[in-house]
């Protein structure tokens, strides 16, 4: 059986990655999962300078989901390269670095430095709802996104380039096409959806930042729909993320058209979630008599059901 998938020129040993911001820099999970087993490790978003993040409370629970407003707390490019990357490099797993800039120049600088450092992939975060400047500005303006992707593409030679799109735009396929036309090797969908929760006893927002990003099973149907729409609009692979808790959820994304998946909030509930999903894929393929996981991708037969109904 073949579990490998291709993202650009990268061959992943299986389609299961971690979602940025939910897996730290890998260290915290090393005692729960064999990091060598993962298709790819996507690390916490990196900015040029270290960021201290938002004041607490930064997270709260909502029905079947959670809101977070971490505010991209991270060690910054320099310390990432010096302290975190060497640790990750020791594992036989692809390393993808999520990056966020305030300006186009910052994105270009970050991507260039990481490419030079030899990371396998760079994931452009143009969809973070929790920082004041940059980020989502690029993810919600077509011209800005086109320009950003094109400029970063020029700075990146050997790493693959992934654009993580914002779910807040009404026309995901258009943004997906822009990312593709300007040199992205893949698209990740979706980042968290902006949300808010209020404590009715105190009348206070539950997050100090007032609003935050919603993740977890609550957003899965939205994410599956966007992956389905985007994957039909572009030829490059779509990486599906949003509420994946188990192998069944991962399969749902692949059937919708995702070439690979990322597990985010699911890691918090079960730190072994990624490996359970990989094992679950083996079992599923075996049971179904499918020899290649690629045969599942985009397999949803929505149209045929639809036409059957019409006949």
């Amino acid at each position, binding site marked *: 059986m073949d579990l490998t998938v291709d993202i650009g020129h990268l061959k992943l040993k299986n389609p299961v990655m971690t979602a940025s*911001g*939910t*897996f*730290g820099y890998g260290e*915290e*999970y090393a*005692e*729960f999962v064999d990091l060598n087993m993962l298709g790819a490790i996507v690390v*916490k978003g990196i900015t040029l300078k270290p960021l*201290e*993040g*938002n*004041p*607490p*409370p*930064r*997270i*709260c*629970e909502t*029905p*079947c*989901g*959670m809101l*977070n407003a*971490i505010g991209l*707390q991270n060690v910054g490019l320099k310390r990432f390269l010096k302290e975190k990357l060497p640790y990750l490099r020791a594992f036989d797993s692809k390393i993808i670095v999520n990056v966020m800039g305030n300006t186009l120049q910052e994105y270009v600088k970050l991507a260039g430095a990481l490419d030079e450092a030899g990371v396998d992939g760079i994931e452009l975060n143009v969809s973070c709802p929790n920082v004041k400047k940059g980020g989502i500005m690029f993810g919600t303006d077509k011209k800005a996104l086109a320009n950003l992707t094109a400029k970063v593409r020029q700075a990146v030679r050997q790493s693959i380039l992934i654009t993580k799109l914002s779910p807040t735009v009404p026309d995901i396929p258009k943004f997906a096409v822009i990312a593709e036309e300007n040199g992205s090797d893949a698209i990740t969908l979706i980042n968290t959806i902006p949300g808010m929760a209020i404590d009715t006893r105190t009348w206070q927002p539950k997050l100090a930042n007032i609003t935050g990003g919603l993740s*977890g*099973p609550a957003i899965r149907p939205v994410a599956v729909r966007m992956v389905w729409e985007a994957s039909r609009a572009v030829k490059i692979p779509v990486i599906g993320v949003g509420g994946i*808790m188990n192998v069944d959820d991962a399969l749902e994304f692949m059937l919708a058209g995702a070439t690979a998946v990322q597990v985010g*909030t699911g*890691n*918090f*509930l*079960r*730190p*072994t979630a990624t490996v359970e999903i990989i094992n679950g894929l083996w079992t599923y393929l075996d049971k179904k008599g499918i020899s290649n996981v690629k045969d599942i991708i985009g397999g949803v037969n929505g149209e045929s059901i639809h036409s059957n109904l019409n006949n």
Partner: protein
Amino acid sequence: MNRYFKAEITKNLPLNSKNNLLTLFPLEPVIDPEPGQFYMIEVSDSYNPLLKRPFCCLRKTPDNMQFLFTVRGKGTALMKEFRKGQVIHLIGPLGSGYPEARKGCTPVVIAGGTGIASLFSFIERTPDSSRVIYGAKTKDELLMLDELRKAGIRLTVCTDDCSFGEEGMVDQIFMNFLRSNESIRTSCVLYACGPRPMLRAVAAIARDNNIKGYASLEENMACGFGACLGCAVNTVKGYKRVCKEGPVFPIQEIVW
């Protein structure tokens, strides 16, 4: 030794209308906790509530582990319904617990409400000279009193409604204690756990009297093992993770 493991519920004993004593039998080899460390407990596998909840281990024997919990919201209400034989997932022990007191220092332990759960195993291990001040809202909410009396420490209990023990809040009792024991100020080290306002008051007294010590904090948690950065607390050295660098912090490091 597994930090992510399954355990079977062997007993879930109501102590009063709000508090239960939960006993679990780990189904896998587990790591022994240090006093002050905690566990993430799965309250439901239905994704609603989604996240595990943090609880300190009250005590651990070779065969089982005990937790003392207060019903606060949805998750703890579900825990109250835990039945014998039910199997749940846990992650732990997690975080950094209470450092041992240096030789020659007298531990002064201050527990408010369910804060006693965090400090109980520490108290059991401290020398007899230790002072323990333990307060709750009402007599009914003072827990583990018999066990504490057996621990051989010097115990003062108090209730907010004066229904038992001394009258008043633990921080007032602590203040009175310092007034009547001038000499102890230079040789005592503080260990505190309880509601945030209580800790803030205790920290202020400690600062004014130049007393060092530790406080165990609470913050909303998603993962519990350092990955999500959701449990940040502001310290004089910047944001730190309650689940990793804490929950126990040097009391003067916290920006209250």
